[in-house]
C-alpha cells in the first residue's frame, strides 16, 4: 500500500516530463498530494503495528548476489515518509510559478521525492543504496538550472559532497556485505538478517566510522556541513525545501537504520566522537548564523544547527535520545521547509534576501501572511513550547542527560544562540524601522493561494505535533527500542 508512494511518484515524474508545463504542475501536485502518497503515509501510521519492521513487498532481485527487492516499514520510516510527503506537497505548491522548463523541473523534483520514499522504505542494503544514490543527480539539475545566487558552484559542491558521502557509504555497505557473506552460508543483504548477524568487533571498529561519516555528511555533520548552506542558498525555493525537509534526513536515517543498527559495537566505540562533533556543530553553526546577512544563509546554518541535535540524540545511546532524534528529523523537516518557503516568498517579491539592505522596510510593507508565518516559523525554530521543535529538542536533551550531561549544558548555550539569530532575522526582516523614503519600497504582489495553502499546511503540522508529540513518539519509540544499538 505505502509502496505506491514510490511507484506513483516515479510515474508522476515521467508523466510530468512528457507533458506541457501546466499539466506537469498539476501532475506533480496530484501525485504528491493524492490518496496513495502523502495521505497513505498518514493512514499507514495510524494502522501501524508498533515495533515491528513490517514487510510490505519482498521479491527476489539478483538472487545470485543476494539482492532482494524488499520494502518494509516501522514507526521511524513512516514518520519520515510522512514528512517527505508533507514537504513534497508544499514544495510543489511553492513552485507553482516556475515557468521556465516547467516539465523538467517537476520531473527532477519528483525524482528526489521518489528516491527519498524509497530510502525510507527499503529493507535491503543494496536497494537502500540504490535509492540513496538516485537522489544525488536530480538535486544538481534542480539547483544548477533553476537556482539563484552562485548556483553552479552551489550545485556542484552539494553534488560532490553527496557523492563523497555516497562513496563512504558504499565502502561500508560492501564491507558489511562481504563480511557477512563470507561467514554465513547464504549471502544476504536483507536488513532483517544482517541485523541478526554478529559482525566481528574489529571489523565493526573500522567500518562504523566510515559508514557513519558517509551518512552524516548528508546529515550536515560539522565539519563537513559546508555544502548545506551554500546548497540551500543556491537552490530554488522548492529545492531548499526538499534539501532541508527531506535530503538531510536521508543521511540521519541511514546513520540510524544502517550504521547504528547493523554495527552496534562500532557505535559504542565511536559515539563519544559523534557527540563532540554534534555539539560543536550545534554551537558553531548557530554562531555563524548570527553573522549572516542573507536570510537563506541564516536558515541554512540554522538547519545545520538543528541537525546537530539529531546527531546528538542518536549518539546519546539511549532509546529516548534516538526517539527524540527521529522526532527532531520530522520537526526540522517541517520547520526548515517552512522557513525556506517564507524566504522564497520574500525573495520572489523583493528580489533580495539581504537582511540589512533592502529587507528592513518595516512591517507595514510586508504582506501580513508572510510576516505571520515567519513569526510562527521562528517561534518553532527557537524551540518555543507548543511547537514540534520544543518537543523534539527537550526529548533529545533528556535522553542525552544520562550519558553526557556536559553536552547538555553546552548545548543549552546553543539554544540561546539559535534564539538570538532567529530574533535578529525576524526583527530586521519584518519589524525594523522603516527606511526613509530614499529607498522606495516596491509594491509587493499579494501572497497567492498555493503559497497560503503550503504555508498553512506546514504551520499546522508543526503546531499539531508540538501540542501532541505523543502521537508520533508512540510509534517511534517501539521501533527504536527494537533496534540493536541499545543492547549491550
Amino acid at each position, binding site marked *: 500500500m505505502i509502496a505506491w508512494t514510490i511507484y506513483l511518484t516515479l510515474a508522476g515524474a515521467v508523466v510530468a516530463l512528457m507533458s506541457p508545463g501546466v499539466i506537469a504542475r498539476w501532475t506533480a501536485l496530484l501525485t504528491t498530494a493524492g490518496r496513495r502518497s502523502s495521505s497513505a503515509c498518514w493512514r499507514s501510521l495510524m494502522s501501524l503495528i508498533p515495533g515491528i519492521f513490517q514487510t510490505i513487498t519482498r521479491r527476489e532481485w*539478483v538472487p*545470485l548476489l543476494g539482492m532482494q527487492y524488499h520494502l518494509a516499514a516501522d514507526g521511524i520510516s513512516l514518520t519520515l515518509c510522512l514528512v517527505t510527503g508533507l514537504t513534497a506537497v508544499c514544495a510543489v505548491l511553492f513552485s507553482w510559478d516556475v515557468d521556465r522548463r516547467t516539465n523538467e523541473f517537476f520531473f527532477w523534483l519528483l525524482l528526489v521525492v521518489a528516491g527519498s520514499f524509497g530510502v525510507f522504505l527499503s529493507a535491503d542494503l543494496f536497494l537502500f543504496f540504490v535509492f540513496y544514490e538516485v537522489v544525488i543527480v536530480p538535486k544538481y539539475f534542480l539547483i544548477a538550472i533553476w537556482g539563484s545566487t552562485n548556483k553552479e558552484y552551489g550545485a556542484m559542491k552539494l553534488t560532490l559532497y553527496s*557523492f563523497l558521502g555516497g562513496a563512504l557509504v558504499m565502502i561500508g555497505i560492501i564491507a558489511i556485505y562481504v563480511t557477512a557473506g*563470507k561467514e554465513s552460508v547464504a549471502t544476504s543483504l536483507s536488513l532483517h538478517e544482517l541485523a541478526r548477524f554478529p559482525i566481528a568487533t574489529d571489523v565493526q571498529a573500522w567500518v562504523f566510522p566510515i559508514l557513519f561519516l558517509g551518512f552524516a555528511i548528508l546529515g550536515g555533520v560539522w565539519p563537513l556541513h559546508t555544502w548545506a548552506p551554500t546548497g540551500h542558498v543556491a537552490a530554488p525555493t522548492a529545492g531548499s525545501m526538499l534539501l532541508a525537509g527531506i535530503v538531510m534526513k536521508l543521511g540521519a536515517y541511514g546513520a540510524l537504520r544502517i550504521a547504528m543498527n547493523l554495527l552496534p559495537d562500532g557505535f559504542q566505540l565511536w559515539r563519544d566522537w559523534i557527540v563532540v562533533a554534534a555539539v560543536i556543530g550545534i554551537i558553531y553553526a548557530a554562531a555563524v548564523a548570527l553573522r549572516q546577512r542573507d536570510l537563506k544563509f541564516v536558515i541554512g546554518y540554522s538547519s545545520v544547527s538543528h541537525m546537530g541535535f539529531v546527531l546528538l540524540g542518536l549518539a546519546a545511546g539511549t532509546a529516548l535520545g534516538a526517539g527524540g532524534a527521529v522526532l527532531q528529523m520530522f520537526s526540522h523537516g517541517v520547520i526548515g521547509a517552512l522557513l525556506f518557503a517564507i524566504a522564497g516568498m520574500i525573495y520572489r517579491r523583493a528580489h533580495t534576501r539581504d537582511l540589512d539592505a533592502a529587507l528592513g522596510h518595516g512591517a507595514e510593507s510586508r504582506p501580513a501572511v508572510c510576516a505571520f508565518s515567519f513569526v510562527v516559523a521562528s517561534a518553532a525554530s527557537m524551540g518555543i513550547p507548543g511547537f514540534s521543535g520544543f518537543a523534539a529538542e527537550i526529548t533529545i536533551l533528556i535522553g542525552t542527560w544520562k550519558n553526557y550531561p556536559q553536552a547538555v549544558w553546552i548545548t543549552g548555550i546553543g539554544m540561546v544562540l539559535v534564539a538570538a539569530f532567529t530574533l535578529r532575522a525576524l526583527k530586521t526582516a519584518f519589524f525594523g524601522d522603516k527606511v526613509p523614503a530614499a529607498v522606495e519600497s516596491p509594491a509587493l504582489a499579494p501572497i497567492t493561494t498555493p503559497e497560503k495553502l503550503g504555508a498553512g499546511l506546514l504551520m499546522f503540522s508543526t503546531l499539531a505535533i508540538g501540542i501532541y508529540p505523543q502521537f508520533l513518539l508512540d510509534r517511534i519509540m517501539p521501533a527504536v527500542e527494537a533496534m540493536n544499538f541499545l543492547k549491550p
Partner: protein
Amino acid sequence: VSYLEFLKLAAPEAVVVFTALVVLAIGLGSKHAQVICPVLAAFGLIAASVMVTTLPNEASLFGGMLVVSPLTSLLKIICLLLALFTVTLTRAGTFARDYAEYLALLLLATVGLMLLVGSEELLMIFIGLELTGLSLYLMTAFDKRDARSAEAGLKYFLFGSTTSAFTLFGLSFVYGATGSTALAGIGEKLASGAVSPLLAAGMVMTLIGLAFKVAAAPFHLWAPDAYQVAPVPSAAFIASGSKVAAFVVLGKVMLVGFGPAHGSAEWQSLAAGWSPILAALAALSIVVGNLVALAQTNVRRLLAYSAVAHAGYTLLGIIAGPHGFAATLFYTTVYALTLLGAFGVVAWVRSSTGGDDFSHFVGLSSRSPVLAACMAVFILSLAGLPPLAGFFGKFYLFSAALAAGERHGLLWLVVLALLGSLISLYYYLLVLKAIFVDDAPGGASPIVPAPLQRSTLTLLAAAIVIGGILPTNFVAQIIAAVR
C-alpha cells in the same frame, strides 16, 4: 580432428571473413556500394551471431587454439553485437568512396576479436591481437582529409607495434621456460615449480602488450589522440569491442595461464606475482586518468582519459581472482555499450555542429531532447549512478575486490577507485552542464538524428537502464559461463 568438424566450430569466424571479402568486392565494382555494403555487413554479423548459438557446448581443438564454451560463445556474441552497433552508427557520408574498405576492415577487426576471446593458446592469441591491431590502426588513420587522423593512426601504430614486440618476446620466454603455448599447460607447469627469472621476465613483457590494449596507464598515451581524431566509429569500436576482448584475454592469460604465480596485492601481505603489478597499473590508471580528464575541454578526449580510469577499475576484478572475473566481464561489457552510445551521440553532434568540444554540446537539451537524454544516460552510467548499469557494475566489481583475500586486503584499491569516481563525477557533470544547464546559442537549429541512428542510440540507452534495474539474467549468464 576432421576438417569438417573444424569448419563447423570456426563457422562464425568464417562467415565474418567471407562477408568482409564480399563487401570489399562489391565496393570495387558496384555503384550502389554505399547502400549495399552496410546492409551486407550487418547481415553477415547477425548471421555469425546466429551461428554462434548453434555451436556445441564444449569443444577444444588443436591444444586450445580454438575453444568453444559457454563463455566464449557469450563473448563472441557480445563482440559481434558491438560490431553491429558500430556499423549502424557509421554513416556513408563520412568516408565517400572508401566506405566498403572501411567496413571490411571493421569486419576483419571483429574476426580478430573473435579469435582473441575464442582461444586459449598463446600463438593464436597473438595472431588475434595483431589482426585486431592492424585493422584498428588503419581505421584510426582512415579520415584522409584530416592530417591529425593520420597522426593519431601513426601514434597508435608505433605504440602498438612496440608493445606487440614486447609481448611476442615475452611469449617466447614463457614458451622457453614452460615448454608449452597452451594456457592450461603453462598453468600446470607453473603450479608444479617455482617461477624462474626467465619466466618472470616473460610474464611482465606479456603483460605490457595486454596493458597497452586495455589502455592502462602508463601504456595509455595513444588513447587520447586515437579517441579524439579518429573517425568516430573507429574510436567507438576501439573503445568498445577491442576493450572487451582485451580484458577477456588479459583475464584468461593471467588467471588460467599464470594463475599459480598470482602473488598478492593485499596491503597486509604483499607478495611477488602478477597481481601486485596489475594493482600498480590499476592505481596509476585511476589516478592519471581521472586527474588528466579534469583538464579536458573536448568530449572525446575526456572520454579517452576517463577510459584509462575505467580500465583501472576493471582491472580490480582480475586482481581479485577467478571470482572477480565475472564482475570484470559484466563491467567491461556494460562499459563498451555505454561508450558506443556516447560516441554515437558525439558523432551526431559533430556532424551537426562541426566539432565535439564542450562548446558544441551547449544547449543540446533544447536542440535535441532525444540525444541529450541518451547522453545523460550514458554519462551517468559512466559516473556509476543508479539505476543505470554502470552503478550495478561498479558495486559488483568493488564487492568482488573487497571479498577477495582474508582481511579486506584490497580495500586500498577500492578506496582509490571510489575517490577516482568522485573526481570523475565532476568532469562528467561538466559535460551534462553544457548539455542541460547552459542555454543554446542564439539561432541554434534543432538537431534531428536519422531514424536508424536514433533508434540505435535509444536502444543502447534502454539497454543501459534495463541492465541497471534488472541485471539478473545477464549476471546469471556470466557467472554460469565463467564456471
